[in-house]
């Protein structure tokens, strides 16, 4: 077994090693936090969600099969934490027929920016993030998994526990809606620049 593998760290964590679990957290916190932040759009809420995901991981360590890969498992936990948060917010999770062209109801906007966005692409990233927040939660998380995690459509479907055709529909419609929201000359100009 790789002395630094996730598998070993999980086994050590099961035996009560705090250091091993902390190492797991530090190893995966960037991926988990990014997923949460891109999904909820608010740094404070994203940190709460990331903490919740790691706590759920900690609680379920005993159920982790020896030899299984940690990352997809943790990934599913984080996705579920995000979906739970979106449901609690009462954001529309799915609104297919009711979605008017160019007329989606955005959620209450969240303030806050991250230092990572303070770069040349800051405006573009902020515009995309704002546009993402205007999508129904199910659409948004499908796009985040596809583009942040670079998952295939099949992998997105597996992560969300929905049929492949549902993911295809959500991503298609989400991209059409985003295209309309992000159609301002400034954003288009940035992309072309």
């Amino acid at each position: 077994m790789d002395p630094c593998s996730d598998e070993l760290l999980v086994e050590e964590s099961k035996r009560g090693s705090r250091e091993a679990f902390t190492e797991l957290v530090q190893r995966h916190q960037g991926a988990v936090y990014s997923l949460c932040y891109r999904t909820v759009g608010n740094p404070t809420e994203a940190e709460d969600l990331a903490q919740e995901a790691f706590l759920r991981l900690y609680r379920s360590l005993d159920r982790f099969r020896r030899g299984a890969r940690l990352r997809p498992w943790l990934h599913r936990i984080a996705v579920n934490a995000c979906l739970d948060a979106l449901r609690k917010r009462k954001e529309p999770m799915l609104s297919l027929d009711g979605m008017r062209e160019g007329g989606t109801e955005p959620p209450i906007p969240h303030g806050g920016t991250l230092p990572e966005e303070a770069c040349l692409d800051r405006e573009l990233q902020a515009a995309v993030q704002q546009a993402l927040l205007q999508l129904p939660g199910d659409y948004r998380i499908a796009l985040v998994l596809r583009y942040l995690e670079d998952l295939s459509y099949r992998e997105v479907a597996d992560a969300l526990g929905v049929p492949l055709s549902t993911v295809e529909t959500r991503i298609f419609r989400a991209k059409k809606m985003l295209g309309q929201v992000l159609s301002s000359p400034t954003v288009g100009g940035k992309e072309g620049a």
Partner: protein
Amino acid sequence: MNCSWKDAEAQRFAEGSLDPERQAAFDAHLEGCAVCRARVAEAQRVEGLLRAGITPVAAPVTLASRVASATAAEREGRRARRGLLVFGRRFSPALVGVAAALVLAVAAYTVAPGAVLALAQRVLFFVPGLGIKPAGDSTLVATAPVSVPSGALTFTVEALLSDGTKTTVKFRLAGLPGGKQGWSSQPPKDRVPVLRDAAGREYGMTGGFQGVGGSMAENVVEGEFGFAPLPGDLRSIDVIMPLDYLVPAAVVPGADQQSLVAQVRLAPPAESGLPAATPQGAQATANGVTLRVAASSLEAGRTVVLVEGETEGMARVTMLGRPGDDSAAAAALRDDRGRTYPLAPEGDGTTVVGNPFHKDLYFAPVAPGAGRFTLNVAAVQVMESAATSVTIPLEGHKAGETFALDRAIDLGGHQVVLTSARLGSDQLPGQEPQTWLYVSVDLGLTADGRTLWSFSARRASGDGSSMWSYGTGEGDRFFGVPVGPGDKSVTIDLHSPIVVVEGPWEVSFPAGQ
């Protein structure tokens, strides 16, 4: 033109995610199909935006320590839950919980039949400074406020509540020299508040805090900090507050070398002497807004009523009463003998803006003999989730010139009239001059018992900075957005309108205590 390819396939082609045969066939088709070329061009534009825009971000430096604190609390909780001592014997927590619920239900039925279900589900306490809160197995509260003097300063932990998911500390720092004008609001990242128990275990700040500040003219800083949850068996905790987290060292010399430590005694609510609260549930609905009296507490020398406000859809109640009203006019309480109780001016309680919205209202102590109360709220403020945008041409207009707009815009069914605009310049000390477009607006047209009071405005691209002035009269209202020196036009997003919804809501509930 007939084209058998679907828009979705053009999107997948732009992604490169069609299977190789379809990818090649679509590629061949493109040469002769202008419709699909346009589809692919649009899909590629969106693809580029998503690739550039949905990128990883670094985790906050506090995340790992927060997880460590939370898992430590989890371990402590597991130990505590392994067995509960009842009448000298050890029972499983589940058995104790069922027995406790049965006892509670029977006891509740004898005093208030209508409240059996609610009482069996929630045990409520009034925590001074934090409002009416439910108590669970792992809930801990401070038994009394703790003040720590340090020279001319006094640091006070006014309240502490740990509910199994987080710990909230309400604090106040008094005795500061002068007001707060000119203070930097950048607390140090390497010195942060923390909770530490007698065994040296630390419970990190969870990042959320609110209300830090007091007014610019006051010599106090007060607010709430959130920390990781505490193990339910703790009976004391040190609140460690680096002084320069609250006050810059330029204001209090040596603040960057000093931490204030308040040792707070803890107890479960039932052993703390805190007043109990009664679950209620009566509600009234008007114009799509439901107001509910969720709980009340008639002890502690005052009357506390926990009000919840709920709306349909994604709108949120943000405040009781009309904008500009005296806060004491936000709600009124009277009893069944016709006596009225004014809203306490010193504090109208903790507010949680969400859906439902929560607010603890503090009234004067109730007079003897009252059996029922009626809460009356005349109006509430609601933030709706509508959004729209408007583009304003800037060409031909000079700095300082006011030009007419007379544009009527629909914002979620409310009419916003942009009456005029002016290009002006501001320069803050040490910064480059910034040109702003100031837009005067007319609001206040009423529809269906809802009056538009304000909205948020920001430039559609840029850092989102904007300013708002509500003025003293209708004609004084304007907002401003930054514009660049060469901009020929500016597109502004108008969103999150705040409307005043007229009631009245009259909610009657029993004294219950």
